[in-house]
């Protein structure tokens, strides 16, 4: 199998062109802070960003891209007046459909609300549903807990969220990981996202010795913090 390891975050995102459609993973946790920071440094603009987690636009994730006008279109569960919101379950199912080769699906969510206006309605077994279409992307940026060099991934706890699904819905998936092991070292029965959906993996660099917080990089974007402990 092909070795997918890339040495730096900057190298990993270097091929993302202006106008690309980029999925950015996570929701609550599981956010690829290092890759977002690298995308910020890289300078791509006119981006279409697909992110479930865009609720904190001015804080930790894609807010910096947004504030500098680098985002042309934001597709998110959180509407803010400029962008229409999408019900969260519909949003994640649209991404799932994109990665599953399914162009559209019907969902009961949103029937009878403003968001249903203009959408195709159809009844199945006496219940009304809305037609929703799939989402795909040129790139997905996601984090993982552990990867092997073939790009097989494991997530820790709620780091998983939408991330394995985005990997399936993008042409190229770039992954920042906390731990990297040799290909073949992960138990095939416990892989959350197979390497076939992954293009590049890059290890998160260690933080400076003695550091106990969340550092800001040059762009002012918080990088991945190791604050906290493992275990339940």
């Amino acid at each position, binding site marked *: 199998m092909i070795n997918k390891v890339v040495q730096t975050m900057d190298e990993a995102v270097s091929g993302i062109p202006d106008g690309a459609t980029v999925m950015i993973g996570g929701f609550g946790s599981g956010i690829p802070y290092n890759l977002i920071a690298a995308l910020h440094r890289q300078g791509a603009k006119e981006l279409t960003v697909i992110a479930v987690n865009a609720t904190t636009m001015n804080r930790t994730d894609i807010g910096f891209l947004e504030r500098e006008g680098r985002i042309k279109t934001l597709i998110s569960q959180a509407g803010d007046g400029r962008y229409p919101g999408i019900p969260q*379950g519909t949003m994640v199912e649209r991404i799932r459909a994109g990665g599953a080769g399914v162009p559209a699906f019907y969902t009961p969510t949103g029937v009878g609300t403003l968001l249903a206006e203009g959408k195709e309605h159809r009844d199945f077994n006496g219940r009304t549903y809305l037609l929703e279409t799939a989402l795909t992307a040129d790139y997905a940026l996601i984090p993982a807990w552990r990867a092997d060099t073939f790009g097989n991934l494991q997530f820790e706890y709620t780091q998983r969220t939408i991330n394995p699904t985005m990997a399936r819905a993008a042409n190229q998936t770039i992954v920042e990981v906390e731990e990297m092991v040799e290909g073949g070292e992960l138990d095939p029965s416990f892989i959350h996202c197979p390497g076939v959906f992954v293009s590049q993996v890059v290890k998160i660099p260690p933080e400076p010795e003695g550091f106990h917080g969340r550092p800001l990089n040059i762009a002012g974007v918080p990088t991945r913090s190791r604050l906290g402990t493992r275990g339940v």
Partner: protein
Amino acid sequence: MTTEAEKPKLAREEILLRTILDFQEGWLVNLGSGLPSYIANYCSPERNVVFHAENGVVGMGRMATREEVNINLTNALAQHILLVPGASIIDHVDSFALVRSGRLSATVMGAYHVASNRDFANVSRDPNVGGSGGGAMDMARNAQRVFIVMEHVSSEGQPKLLKRCTLPLTCPGVVTRVFTDLGVFDFGEDCFVIKEIAPGWTVDEVRALSEGDIVAAPDLKEIDLKALHEAIASDG
């Protein structure tokens, strides 16, 4: 003489405690943002109620203390949480598969408006802009029961129990029960039915702070705060 403004209402914690008493053993319950997200802090695992967080947790426990924080373990609001024994982690898609397929026994969420026809609104404060409300539309449309937990009047003193909602709907016709700091409300024919009332309050006083019609249940009773605290404390 005590005016309405001075009369004590249920504390926020007490609204949550009263809500917990409605949960039955074996239920799977989603907790929405704001006040409801703290329910897991008060509800003992002995009740055998399983809490769902839509970012992918089945078996959410209480909030983590600073020493217990794991950055890879949060609820949907990015609050650091713990898991209960037997919990499982699922991906975001499975989390909403569970919701849409009707497996939630109840969803508990806040609201700006609840109407006497069981409509409710919690996605947008702007009458012309329909927000998404995160997962609220999914939960409301598909859960077996929709419990609304909120203060009886808005921070501006406006009634929130209305004849009809004037904000964009989260979902029409689905609310099962409303828990406020003045009582517990079910629904009748285009009216609210007050089942339990805050200590010292009269139905007319509650009506004065509501716009929708309120009918007193034949078995209307006063909420026994002492018993409420004892019932929860006995969870151990």
